[in-house]
Every structure is written in C-alpha cells, then in structure tokens.
C-alpha cells in the first residue's frame, strides 16, 4: 500500500504548497508545483491533473494586475484552506470539487474577463497534455486525462524539442525506403 500512502501525502503536500505559494505571490513556486503534480499523474490522474491545472491557473492570474483584488484573493484562500482539510481527511473527491470551485470563482470574477480565463484554463489543459505526451504517454491518453484538444496538443508539442530529445528509432533514409514500398512499382519496358 506504499503508493496509497504516497498519494495521500502527495495530495496534502501539493495543495498545501499551492496555498502557501499563492499567498506569497510566488509564481515560480506555483510552476514548480505544477510540474510536480504532472509527475504525480501516475498516482492518480484525475486528482493530480486537477491540482496541476489549479496551480497553472493561479500562477497565470498572479501576473495579471487586473486580477489583484482583495475579495477574489480572499475567496481563493478560503477555498484553498478547505481543500487542504479535504486532503488531510483523504477526501479526494471533495478536494477535486474544491479545486474546480476555485477555478469557477476565477472564471466568474469578471464577466468581461471570462473568455480570457477560459482561455487560460484551456491553455493549461494543452500545456499539461503536451507535457505528459513528452514524458511518454500516448497522445490520445493525454487527451483523455486532460480534455485538451488534439490539434492544440500537436501544435504545442511541435514547437518544443521533444522529438529531438527522444524518438529517433529508425534513420530518416531507412524510413523513407520503407515508405517507398507503398508505391506502385514502375512498369518495366
């Protein structure tokens, strides 16, 4: 049951760190937590994907001056505190609900900015999916975990160097020679 213990302690650790980093306006730390949550997707995909998305979104709103609003920050912090309690009581369903509630609070903060926040959340899905794909999960698997758009993930991944780091299994010339086998042979005269 080692993995269960790890999962429980990891979820408490991640949500607690998210709250501390948010309170401290520590964007760099939120991004580090995002990376940690991505690695933890192997422990529980739904839970750690949600926490990854939450830390990503919070890191994005911290950099935007128009979201610096005491009432908004207070609501987020109250819900983060509740989420920590759910994590401590090992209630991961309530923790996930709580994280989504925070995302809803941010989305509905300002009607004018709604599209912008939805865009951030969608970009978060794409970024997390691309990261999981780069780490070795298949494309459709990452789509099913994150709900990202396949086209977006392909596009995002294409602009990274993931294919340069790993993935060369057959030389380009050899693969081209394999591909040539699908062509009709030239008629001999």
């Amino acid at each position: 049951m080692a993995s269960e213990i790890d999962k429980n302690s990891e979820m408490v650790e991640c949500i607690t760190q998210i709250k501390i980093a948010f309170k401290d306006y520590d964007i760099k730390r939120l991004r580090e937590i995002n990376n940690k949550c991505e690695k933890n997707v192997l422990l529980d995909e739904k839970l750690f994907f949600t926490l990854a998305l939450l830390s990503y979104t919070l890191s994005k709103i911290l950099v935007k001056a128009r979201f610096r609003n005491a009432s908004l920050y207070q609501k987020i912090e109250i819900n983060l505190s509740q989420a920590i309690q759910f994590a401590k009581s090992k209630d991961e369903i309530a923790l996930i609900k709580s994280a989504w509630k925070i995302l809803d609070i941010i989305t509905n903060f300002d009607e004018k900015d709604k599209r912008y926040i939805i865009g951030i959340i969608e970009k978060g899905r794409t970024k997390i999916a691309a990261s999981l794909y780069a780490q070795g999960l298949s494309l459709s698997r990452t789509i099913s975990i994150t709900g990202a758009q396949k086209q977006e993930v392909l596009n995002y991944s294409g602009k990274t160097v993931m294919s340069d780091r790993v993935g060369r299994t057959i030389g380009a010339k050899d693969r081209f020679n394999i591909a040539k086998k699908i062509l009709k042979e030239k008629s001999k005269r």
Partner: protein
Amino acid sequence: MGREDIDRSEYFEQANERQLNPNSVVCDSSSLISLTDTGLLGALMMLRKEIKGEFIITEGVIDESINTPIKKPEYAFSAIRIKRALKSGAFRIGKYEKGTYDEILRITNNMFYTDRPFHLVNHGEAEMLAAAIDNGVGFVLMDERTTRMLIESPLELKRHIENEFRVRININDALFRRFREMTSGISVIRSSEILALAKSKGYFRKFGDIENDAYKAALYALKFNGCSISFEEIEELSRVV
C-alpha cells in the same frame, strides 16, 4: 453535431466488400491533422493514385479529425477539408474486431507496470493498430511519437518514461512478447515520409527553382505542427529526396 454528421453506411458497405491490399496504409488522426493544418493534405491526395493499396481510416479517426473539431470554430476548417477528402473517396473505412482492439488495449496498458499497470495508450491508437492487424495491412501513418516508439523501440520508451517520471518500470514478458508478435508486420511512416514520397512524384515541381527549399520548409512546417521528426531527420530527409 454528432456521429451522424458523416453518413458512414455507404463507406462501411464498401469496407467489407473486398480485401485490403497489404500495402495499404492505416492513417491516424495525428498525421491527418498535421497534413491539413499545414495545407499539405494535397500531398496525400496526390499519392492516392501512386500507391499499391489504399489509405484507410477508422471510425475513431473520423470522430477525432472531423466530427469533434468541426464543432469548434478554430478547427472547423481543417475538419471540413478532411471531410471533403473523405467524401471524395480518398479514404476507405477500415473495420476491426472488437477482440483485437480489446487485446491491444489490455496488452499495451499492462505490459509495463510499476506497483500498478502503466496505462500508456487509449482508444485512438488501439483502434488504428487493430485495423492494421485485422486487415493484414503492413503500414500505419502516424505522427504520434509514443505508439511509434512502442512498436519500434519499446525498451527505449520504457527508459524514457523511467527517466521522466523517476520510477522503475517492470515488464510483463508474456504481454511484451505478444505485443511484439502482433505488431511485427507493421511499419510506421509519418506525414514527413508522405511528403517525401510526394516530392519524389513531383508534388513540389510547381515551385520551380525553389522546389527543394519549398520541400524542406514544408517538412519544418509538419514538425512545428506536431509530426514527431527531429531537426536532424529533416536535414537527412531533405538530402535523400
């Protein structure tokens, strides 16, 4: 819009009429998306008459590359272009046995494990492999990296995942061997190879004296739109053709 968007009945009727040529190519949505987004679907269309077999797509690929994206304004145009290609008869719909599909999912999601099975692939990739295996087709067109590595170099993929997730992955030998056996007759090509073949058939001649530049630029465009090809491979491929 849902699955009824495309009237599949006419395609399915033809699907089982004749046996597929083993040199046909089962296409994944990743490659169709890369080719369409770069405006290079024409290269695939051009090759239709040049290949021994046919280009095959599955129901899932229709959903992923047409029915789902067509609902979103930002992807609708690409989806419409693939839909037009489908309607023009560019692709034949490939069927597969549910048993084969289930076996692929079971194997690929259990052959690597930590303290629990490592869930690696999903519906899309499993369906494509099942269609290739059940129809005796030797080629899959796929820009996606993980499934390609799983077929060509599973141990390298295992090492990569271990490094990335910092976990030790074990192998279920029986499932590993079974997967190797099932996929032994399958070769993977990417949209970049489709482009190279099209180049060899004159697809870029319209660019005149900048034909080679256009070809190389098109390879880069594919890479930046998700085709899993390295910069080094692009250089190599642009020298080969």
